[in-house]
């Protein structure tokens, strides 16, 4: 009898992704191309699974990140908050190849957080009086109307961390954190790609951003492209 919290570190992306099967709901961290689990994203295409439901804020952009899944034709549905200039998604949405469900970004984050925290549904003011309200229950509480939104759990989460210890305690770097922690909490199986892998104890208890209780597989990937969308700078004075 061995639980899920022993021996989490695996040697390869292939091994990390072995449990994936067709039709799964995959939660993927990242905001635009920032804080993406780049090697895991590429690895899923190589893994050869299909008919995936993808939950991610953006589903890639500029042909990069999760756009690889769209190009590979392995996604049947995307739940996201923003498409913008993501032409890979626009064309597949237009052709009907991929079904797209758009949700406000805060509602997406909260639905994932709820799934991780055992809250099956919650009321929110976001989207009241808009198309987001259509087909959903509403309730007036203390004189204001709210929408009932449901938790959004997944089968697998793909997560990018800056640093992980062997138990899976994670630290993120700057805004690379974004959706990564909530995605990890909301999935049955959370797979982490980390820039640095350290021994237990190297991260002080108070410095853990996400506790290893939410992490099941860890793979160390030292090199990342870390693509820019808008490289904005100022002149030195």
């Amino acid at each position, binding site marked *: 009898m061995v639980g899920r919290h022993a021996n989490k570190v695996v040697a390869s992306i292939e091994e990390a992704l072995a449990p994936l099967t067709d039709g799964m709901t995959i939660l993927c961290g990242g905001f635009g191309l920032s804080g993406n689990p780049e090697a895991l994203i590429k690895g899923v295409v190589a893994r050869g699974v299909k008919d995936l439901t993808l939950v991610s804020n953006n589903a890639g952009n500029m042909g990069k990140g999760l756009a690889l899944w769209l190009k590979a034709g392995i996604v049947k549905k995307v739940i996201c908050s923003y498409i913008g200039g993501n032409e890979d998604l626009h064309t597949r949405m237009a052709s009907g190849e991929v079904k797209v469900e758009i949700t406000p970004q*805060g509602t997406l984050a*909260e639905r994932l957080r709820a799934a991780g925290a055992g809250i099956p549904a919650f009321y929110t003011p*976001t989207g009241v009086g*808009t*198309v987001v309200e259509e087909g959903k229950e509403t309730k007036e509480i203390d004189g204001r109307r709210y929408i009932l939104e449901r938790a959004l759990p997944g089968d697998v989460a793909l997560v990018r961390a*800056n640093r992980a210890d062997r138990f899976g305690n994670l630290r993120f770097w*700057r805004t690379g*954190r974004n959706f990564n922690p909530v995605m990890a909490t909301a999935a049955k199986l959370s797979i982490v790609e980390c820039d640095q892998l350290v021994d237990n104890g190297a991260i002080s208890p108070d410095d853990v951003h996400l506790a290893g209780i939410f992490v099941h597989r860890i793979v160390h990937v030292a090199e990342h492209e870390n693509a820019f969308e808008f490289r904005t700078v100022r002149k030195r004075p």
Partner: protein
Amino acid sequence: MTFSTEDMARRASKEIPAGSIVNLGIGLPTQVADYLPVGHAWLHSENGLLGTGPFPFEGEEDPNLINAGKQTVTVLPGGSTFDSAASFGMIRGGHVDVAILGAMQVAANGDIANWAVPGGKVMGIGGAMDLASGCKNVIAMMQHVTKKNEHKLVARCDYPLTATRVVTLVITDLGVFAPTGEAFRIVELAPGVTREQAIAATGAPLV
């Protein structure tokens, strides 16, 4: 003479109290930051950053330090990072004092439409609905009319709504206007803009 986009951004900056928390929407509103004195207010980026600083010096760009418009930025002393759920908790919970948002239409009752054009390509909602419904004070910034001369300050929005009854002030190239319920009140006209011009360009009563 009308307000340039720089004039609009400068004017919008006057609406930000010292020591407040502000979220600047993608596009035009982001320029408002250029007119805020150093240390005047704290800028919140909904992707998980409070205390957003100016663009980095060349060569110091960090792909994992961006604002909600995916532009590389810096973080000021006293800044902090957090995850998306925490970030939208700040917004939805009313902890962000002011949001300055781009808009396609604003109605006299304060309704705002800023995420989709009827029949147009769906770009997504992003943080727009959360910001518009969650922030204590929502200011819209936009051109007063479309390129086809259609009204954008209207009696009732016919574009898909972002949030209802939330806008407190609209800053356009023609001036500054406050939704009052049935009409827009003229707070200020751009230099050289007449009351008649503004009335003609507005799709709701102007008082």
